[in-house]
């Protein structure tokens, strides 16, 4: 230990000096540790550290005063001081020290080393006598506070008499200056950190608010709700007291309050009743200039109509931010305070965000409204179109009735004979009339499909029966052109559930087309098979085929495609309609063709209806009417009986042969069966036996209607009634009344109200 060595052979003077040194060292040590403790304790408060440093420096350097000046914006500004009057500190704050040699602080900053001036009054370069006079110091020592080789400030100790600082003080001051530099660095860091986290917090708050607004926009198509969220958040985030969103009306050249927050009802009412026009208001000016405008004090300016309302309502400062969309004025966002005061740029920036959101929301709502209006208009147009078509169809049908009817009268030779040419021409008139009628029906059907008004009547029916029926209608035409017709139905196919009438319409259309476009001597084959849960029906001809470029086109209305001239004209709507009907049945229709070899038009539909089509399920009574299966192959009888039955509000299901009839009864479980005896495939006797033998159908009453008068046999086999043709309406209905299918009142005319 040096103390011991020194003490070993020392005089008392020397001992005293050593003791003093020891005391100094202790004090220095204590001070340093105090600073270090302060540094540790106030790690999060560097300001307190600087206080400790400046106080310790004054004490340990035995100075009257000490100060820290920080280099800010090009001059040294007094930051901390101890032992100096308020007058002095205030003065120095107002007149900071320059970065030059007029002060020791300036010099130390320039030279980057500790220096002292023994007597500032004796220093010819010293320039701040003003400071000296206020504080009275004579000897000054300063140390630069260096951070990464940059001067951040200067630590000075001042003595009020000429008494230069010794080496020990110089060392101490250097050490304190280093600590102070670190503390300043920490201050900077903390301040930066605080600024960052404040900014982050603010950003977070803004993000949250904007997020809320965005959520409101996407969660609600209700514009009022969205705008209310926007204006509320705008007010909240800008720490104002109230606000509103103004919507601009181009026709009126003025604004109206669309939404408001923090605004008393009476003020709102007044605002709504006030004209806020584009040309003479703060709001208008902001939108015209396309930038935020603010009035920090309504007391100081001439008020426009809008501001007058606000002023009367107790508002004192207002900012208006334009809401623009592609430079069109949508409106303005306004926030206001009950106290006077400027709006910071930051606030205005923030408001612009909200204004953009509002503009977007209003724009979207306007688009939405437009779309709604448009679709309502379209609906009206479509309604008109449907009504037009329905009435046109009716209007055209009336003269057609006469054209076709009178042709038939003449062709029936009711009023005398015709020569061959007259008959031929009459036939042309008649067939043209029929053609026109067909066209009319298809247009009507198509418009129904397109208007979504085609109702499907779903029943289960025999695939073979339906295909045979359709083919029977073209058989005559086919044989006329020596075209062979054949039908090939897979053995595992029985019934399909669909709209029977529409199904037949599609098949008939395809078969008719095939016959039309097949040259004499060719063939047309209809095949049906099961494919998974679907029924696939294909109509194959040996015609000229459809070139690839026409394969889509022929499904469009009034397009024949490059299949050459047909033998007869068609409506040009058949394929379009067929495809639509198949689609309505949840199926699809397609074409495969090879030019020169022929075409196959095929469609597939679910074997069991998938339920999207409307209509009663099998067994249900249509619209509450009792259902009767009519098994009859003779067309005129069929039509007549159908008319009688439907006239009595009976839902008629028609079967054209015995087998189909049997299946129809099994599926439909009808209220009764009207059964002809002479039938294709299976005669009426066999049908009757089969029905009575099957427990599922034995209870269904059967009324036989036949030209064969074998009443006893019929009743013996289990028929509930037996009528011999010709049958009158009342007889038929009486027979059904006897089996309680219809009310007796339906046929006795006396009981009507």
């Amino acid at each position, binding site marked *: 230990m040096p103390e011991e060595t020194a003490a070993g052979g020392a005089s008392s003077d020397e001992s005293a000096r050593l003791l003093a040194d020891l005391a100094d060292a202790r004090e220095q040590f204590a001070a340093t540790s105090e600073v270090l403790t302060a540094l540790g304790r106030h790690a999060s408060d560097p300001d307190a550290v600087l206080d400790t440093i400046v106080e310790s420096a004054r004490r340990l350097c035995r100075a009257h005063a000490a100060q820290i000046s920080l280099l800010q914006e090009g001059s040294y500004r007094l930051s901390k001081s101890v032992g100096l009057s308020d007058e002095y500190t205030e003065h120095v704050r107002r007149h900071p020290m320059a970065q030059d040699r007029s002060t020791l602080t300036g010099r130390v900053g320039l030279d980057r080393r500790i220096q002292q001036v023994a007597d500032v009054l004796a220093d010819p370069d010293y320039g701040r006598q003003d400071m000296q006079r206020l504080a009275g110091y004579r000897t000054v020592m300063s140390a630069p506070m260096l951070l990464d080789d940059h001067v951040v400030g200067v630590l000075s100790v001042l003595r009020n008499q000429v008494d230069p600082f010794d080496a020990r003080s110089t060392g101490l001051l250097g050490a304190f200056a280093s600590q102070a530099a670190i503390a300043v660095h920490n201050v900077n860091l903390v301040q930066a950190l605080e600024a960052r986290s404040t900014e982050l917090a603010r950003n977070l708050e803004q993000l949250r608010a904007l997020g809320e607004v965005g959520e409101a926009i996407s969660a609600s198509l209700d514009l009022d709700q969205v705008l209310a969220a926007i204006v509320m958040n705008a007010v909240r985030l800008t720490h104002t007291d109230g606000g509103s969103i103004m919507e601009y009306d181009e026709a009126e050249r003025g604004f109206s309050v669309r939404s408001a927050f923090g605004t008393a009802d009476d003020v709102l009412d007044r605002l709504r009743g006030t004209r806020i026009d584009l040309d003479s208001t703060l709001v208008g000016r902001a939108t015209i200039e396309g930038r935020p405008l603010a009035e920090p004090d309504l007391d100081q300016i001439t008020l426009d109509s809008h501001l007058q309302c606000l002023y009367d309502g107790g508002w004192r400062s207002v900012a208006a931010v334009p809401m623009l969309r592609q430079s069109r004025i949508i409106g303005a966002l306004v926030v206001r305070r009950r106290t006077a005061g400027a709006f910071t740029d930051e606030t205005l920036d923030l408001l612009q965000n909200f204004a953009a959101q509002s503009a977007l929301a209003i724009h979207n709502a306007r688009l939405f409204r437009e779309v709604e209006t448009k679709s309502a208009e379209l609906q009206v147009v479509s309604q008109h179109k449907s009504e037009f078509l329905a009435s046109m169809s*009716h209007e055209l049908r009336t003269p057609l*009735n006469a054209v076709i*009817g009178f042709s038939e*009268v003449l062709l*029936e030779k*009711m009023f005398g004979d015709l020569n061959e040419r007259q008959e031929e021409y009459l036939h042309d008139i008649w067939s043209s009339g029929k053609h026109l009628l067909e066209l009319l029906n298809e247009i009507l059907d198509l418009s129904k499909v397109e208007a979504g008004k085609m109702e499907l009547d779903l029943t289960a029916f025999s695939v073979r029966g339906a295909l045979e029926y359709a083919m029977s209608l073209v058989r005559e035409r086919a044989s006329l052109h020596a075209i062979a017709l054949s039908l090939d139905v897979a053995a595992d196919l029985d019934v399909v559930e669909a709209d029977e009438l529409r199904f037949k319409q599609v098949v008939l259309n395809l078969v008719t087309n095939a016959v039309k476009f097949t040259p004499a001597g060719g063939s047309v084959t209809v095949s049906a098979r099961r494919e998974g849960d679907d029924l696939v029906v294909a109509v194959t001809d040996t015609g000229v085929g459809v070139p690839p470029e026409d394969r889509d086109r022929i499904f469009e209305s009034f397009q024949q495609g490059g299949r050459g001239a047909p033998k007869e004209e068609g409506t040009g709507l058949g394929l379009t309609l067929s495809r639509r009907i198949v689609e309505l049945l949840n199926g699809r229709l397609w074409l495969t063709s090879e030019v020169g070899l022929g075409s196959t038009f095929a469609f597939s539909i679910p074997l069991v209806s998938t339920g999207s089509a409307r209509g009663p399920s099998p067994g249900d009574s249509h619209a509450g009417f009792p259902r009767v299966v009519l098994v009859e192959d003779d067309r005129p009888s069929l039509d007549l009986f159908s008319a009688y039955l439907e006239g009595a*509000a009976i839902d008629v299901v028609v079967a054209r042969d015995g087998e189909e009839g049997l299946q129809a009864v099994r599926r439909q479980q009808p209220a009764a069966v009207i059964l002809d005896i002479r039938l294709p495939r299976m005669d009426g006797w066999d049908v009757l036996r089969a029905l009575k033998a099957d427990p599922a159908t034995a209870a269904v009453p059967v009324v036989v209607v036949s030209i064969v008068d074998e009443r006893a046999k019929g009743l013996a086999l289990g028929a509930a009634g037996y009528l011999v043709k010709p049958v009158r309406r009342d007889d038929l209905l009486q027979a059904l009344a006897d089996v309680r299918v219809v009310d007796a009142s339906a046929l006795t*005319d006396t009981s*009507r109200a």
Partner: protein
Amino acid sequence: MVRPHVLVVEDNAKNLKLVKDVLEFAGFGVSEARSGEEGVDLARRLQPDVVLLDLQLPGIDGMEALRQLRADPVTSALPVVAVTAFAMKSDRHRTLVAGFDGYIAKPISVRDFPDQVRGFLRTKSVP
């Protein structure tokens, strides 16, 4: 046998003539009316065996004419058949629900029309 008597209510002259000619040829006696009002009035006075009523008529339409016929005890029991160019299936059900005895769609089939009408006659007057 008594000639069955048909009252045809139809505003279109040519269609009226067609129906009249066809029915007369088939042995019916035909009276004609050109409006709903006239049809109701004639039905009351002539007591035909069947009334063929167009649905779309000037003045009161077919539905209203039917209502008036049914409301009057003198005509309430008359068979009334709608003959109309309204072609949809729903139209047919509408007419049947309204209380028509039957429905014949236009254009009529000249060959079948007399039989269809005959089917609606009251039993006593079948030709």
